[in-house]
């Protein structure tokens, strides 16, 4: 269970999140809100990439959850290597034994196996997005955080992403795509001006 307890993270230049309380269990939760509402900030705080100025995040009751929560960036960032290496790198970094099998499985799941030997940074935005999601899925994290995962995907890719996400639990998605949110989420949480709203 992810517990976000009274978390505040404000940027020096303005914006951020204030006093957020949220619990995510075995469910798919969608955080909906317009641009700049604080969706990305909230996900980054949960992922441990931003340290909150106040409040705390607990994952399964622990403050030390590195590796249990994997965050997929809104703008995919590819390592300067092949698609296969992009996916397998983190698995090897974490000394996972069946790294290759997991990478292949994730690529097949995302429909990018045929891209495995291509240079990842030369792919289209949609393909990069799929590599980015495959890279996270291969790690089989306890909790998966997806930031605007449909931003660069075409209709059929969105449909297959819906079924992939529906096939697992403990997913937190930030999106402003209401259709996607309705299709995929068990629960929708709305955020405006850095605060959760009913």
């Amino acid at each position, binding site marked *: 269970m992810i517990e976000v307890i009274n978390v505040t993270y404000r940027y020096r230049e303005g914006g951020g999140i204030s006093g957020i309380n949220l619990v995510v269990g075995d469910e798919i939760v969608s955080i909906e809100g317009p641009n700049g509402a604080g969706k990305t900030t909230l996900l980054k705080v949960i*992922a441990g*990439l931003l340290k909150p100025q106040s409040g705390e995040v607990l994952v399964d009751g622990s403050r030390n959850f*590195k*590796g249990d929560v*994997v*965050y*997929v*960036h809104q703008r995919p*960032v590819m*390592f*300067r*290597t092949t698609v296969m290496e992009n996916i397998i*790198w*983190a698995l090897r*970094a*974490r000394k996972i034994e069946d790294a290759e099998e997991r990478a292949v499985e994730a690529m097949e799941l995302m429909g990018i196996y045929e891209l495995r030997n291509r240079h990842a940074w030369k792919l289209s935005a949609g393909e990069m997005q799929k590599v980015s999601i495959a*890279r*996270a899925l291969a*790690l089989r*994290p306890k909790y998966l955080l997806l930031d605007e995962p449909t931003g660069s995907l075409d209709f059929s890719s969105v449909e297959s992403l819906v079924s992939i996400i529906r096939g697992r639990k403990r997913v937190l998605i930030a999106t402003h795509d209401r259709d996607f949110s309705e299709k995929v989420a068990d629960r929708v949480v709305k955020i405006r001006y850095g605060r959760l709203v009913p």
Partner: protein
Amino acid sequence: MTPLEIAEISLRSIAISGTASIIAAVISIPLSLFLCLRDFKGKNLILEILNSMVSLPTVVIGLLLYYLLTRTGPLGFLDLMYTPIAMVIGQAILIIPLMTIFMERALDSRKDVVEVAISLGASNSQAAHRLFLDSLPGIISSVLVGFNRAIGELGVALMLGGNIKGFTRVMTTAIALEVSKGEFELGISLGFILVCISLLLTSAISRMARR
């Protein structure tokens, strides 16, 4: 000047500037990684100092090291004055700021890789290693910029090397000598060879880096 002498001077230039570039890279890589990845008070000041050191005249560095390495200087006991080692030290000091600034920019342009690596569960050192790998073309370009600066400089080579025939004479000091003797054509020919060496090495290593 015989073709054999020209070849010998060319090789010495490459060896001295190449060694200086390797030493400078060994210092600049961790320094630029540190500057890119750590936020601390005074970081901008360090970057500004390094930036201003890029435009420091080579003769000033030559003078400073001359004072240190000369027989009566604080490091005179090392007996390095007018040796290729002194030239290597001088050129390395000359190009470290330049290399560090270029490397820091190359690393900074790929800094988002660090956040991705950490979000995938990598440790800080693994993320830094990933950043290094992803910035390798930029890092190699920075080393080449440093090498080209070193092989083309005159002040340090002349003041610390002394232009001793068969020992510390390199392309730039040979050009200066020939021009001072009124041998302009030979000076220009040597200059052309220097440009060719720089161009060949730069394009060969850049191609390797792109692969």
